[in-house]
């Protein structure tokens, strides 16, 4: 478990992280999302001590990392794998040699090295590339090697800093799939820093939104998307659609896939009142689907619609034109 309390980090005079409070449970896939410069990478790098901080604390499995130095800090890092956006391999070494570097640093005996590396090569699907030079690999393959290298010390936590941002959508999907598999198979805790909302949808159980060094929202991914806090709207941009000037606009959010599919027919069959569909979207999450509809109804019918939503326990809110 990782507990970040009241974390403050400054570079010279600029406050980069400002009273951050986040708790990450074992086995979670936790998403950190925010605009460029929000402080995501900095926060991530504080967790494994690549950056120091000025105030607050980070406690990992009961150990306050601010108390660690040299040897003990390196021991901590051994248990925390990290992957980066850029490709962080030695180009002129083979896949095998690259994955072996952490093992060499920790003086693991050769036979055990071989065993661990070959097992990981199988998991990341690069058995056939074992002796290929890293520079001859595709972007996705390089990232797989980086993942294998991050996993080779059997860490309990994996930090990913924009691990898929440099990849095309299909390769991104494959890498995310691999990370999900590692999470399921080994119960490894994963912290994903990203600016792609789709990565959060697909992977994460919990999330935080960072804005200018402040943690604006933290919680279950689904709940955050149901509540649509201001920080989330800032991030995804206010509804792209043009809201009509007349009538009242209501946004309905539905987490149950079946209910979402039936929503329109149910609504029109039971209420028999006219409404306009302004916008609809489906978002696939790690568990389930979130349907979001914006409808426009007349002033007179407004209360009837609300009664209907209340009776059916639907989550709604009135939205105003900008």
């Amino acid at each position, binding site marked *: 478990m990782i507990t970040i309390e009241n974390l403050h980090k400054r570079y010279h005079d600029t406050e980069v992280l400002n009273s951050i409070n986040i708790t990450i449970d074992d086995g979670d896939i936790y998403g950190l999302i925010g605009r460029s410069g929000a402080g995501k990478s900095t926060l991530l*790098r504080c967790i*494994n001590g*690549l950056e120091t901080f000025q105030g607050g604390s980070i406690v990992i499995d009961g150990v306050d990392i601010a108390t660690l130095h040299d040897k003990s800090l*390196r*021991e*901590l*890092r*051994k248990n*925390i*794998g*990290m*992957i*980066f*956006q*850029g*490709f*962080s*391999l*030695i*180009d*002129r*070494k083979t896949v095998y040699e690259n994955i072996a*570097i*952490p093992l*060499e*640093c*920790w003086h693991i005996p050769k036979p055990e090295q071989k065993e661990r590396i070959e097992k990981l090569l199988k998991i990341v699907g690069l058995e056939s590339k074992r002796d290929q030079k890293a520079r001859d690999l595709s972007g996705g393959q390089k990232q797989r090697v*980086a993942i294998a*290298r*991050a996993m*080779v*010390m059997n860490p309990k936590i994996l*930090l990913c800093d924009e691990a898929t941002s440099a990849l095309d959508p299909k390769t991104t999907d494959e890498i995310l799939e691999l990370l999900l598999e590692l999470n399921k198979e080994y119960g490894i805790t994963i912290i994903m820093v990203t600016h792609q909302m789709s990565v959060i949808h697909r992977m994460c159980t919990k999330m935080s939104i960072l804005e200018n060094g402040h943690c604006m929202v933290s919680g279950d991914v689904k709940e955050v998307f149901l509540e649509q806090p201001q920080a989330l709207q800032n991030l995804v941009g206010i509804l792209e659609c043009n809201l009509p000037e007349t009538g009242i606009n209501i946004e309905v959010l539905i987490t149950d896939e079946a209910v979402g599919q039936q929503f329109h027919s149910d609504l029109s069959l039971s209420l028999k009142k006219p409404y306009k569909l302004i916008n609809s979207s489906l978002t696939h999450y790690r568990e389930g689907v979130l349907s979001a509809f914006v409808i426009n109804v007349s002033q007179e019918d407004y209360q009837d619609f609300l009664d209907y939503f209340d009776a059916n326990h639907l989550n709604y809110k009135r939205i105003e034109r900008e």
Partner: protein
Amino acid sequence: MVDYSWNVIIFQIIFPSMGVTLLMVLCATVLACLLGFCLAIALFWVGKHGLSPNEKCYATLNIVVSFIRSFPFIILAISILPITRFITGSVIGWESALFPLTVAATPFMGRIFENCFKEVSLDLIDAARSFGATNLQIVFKILIPATLPSIVNGGVLSVIQILSLTTIAGTLGAGGIGASALIYGYQSFNDKIMYTLVIVLFVLVLAIQLLGDYVYKRIK
């Protein structure tokens, strides 16, 4: 002007002076490589994106390196003559020339190797830190393996640089090809010897470059 026979030119002038030059180049290269390498690691270590950044240390090293590099070799060699005498006990002979050669070549090599290390992506170094490598392990298991081909390239550049310095050292009493070209060639108005020695130098440079390129390709 005396017209030496080829026999004399080859066996009494070229071979002995080439022997001296090669010895000088070899010893100076080994010394300057070792010291230059340490210097480069020191520079990188305390450098801005280094392993343990320290602005003051870096600025000091940087100034010293630039200071020595700003000297033309002949001035440097002359101005450190007292130190050379103190260390080697003499100021003539190729052994004495090793000291100014090493002093001049070390900052040159240090800078070249430092630039090699700077090419390493910061993510790679962060990755090494993130799996718990010590700074020394980062140097030996990451920096050097990742930059070996560039290091070889830089090394070749330095060897050729040192070769050209030895010819200047030759005029200061170190002997070698440079001195022979000057004494038997230029000062004796003997074009045959001078241009023969120029060709010998050219062949040496070419050989070093080709060897370097070959090694570079092999390890790349």
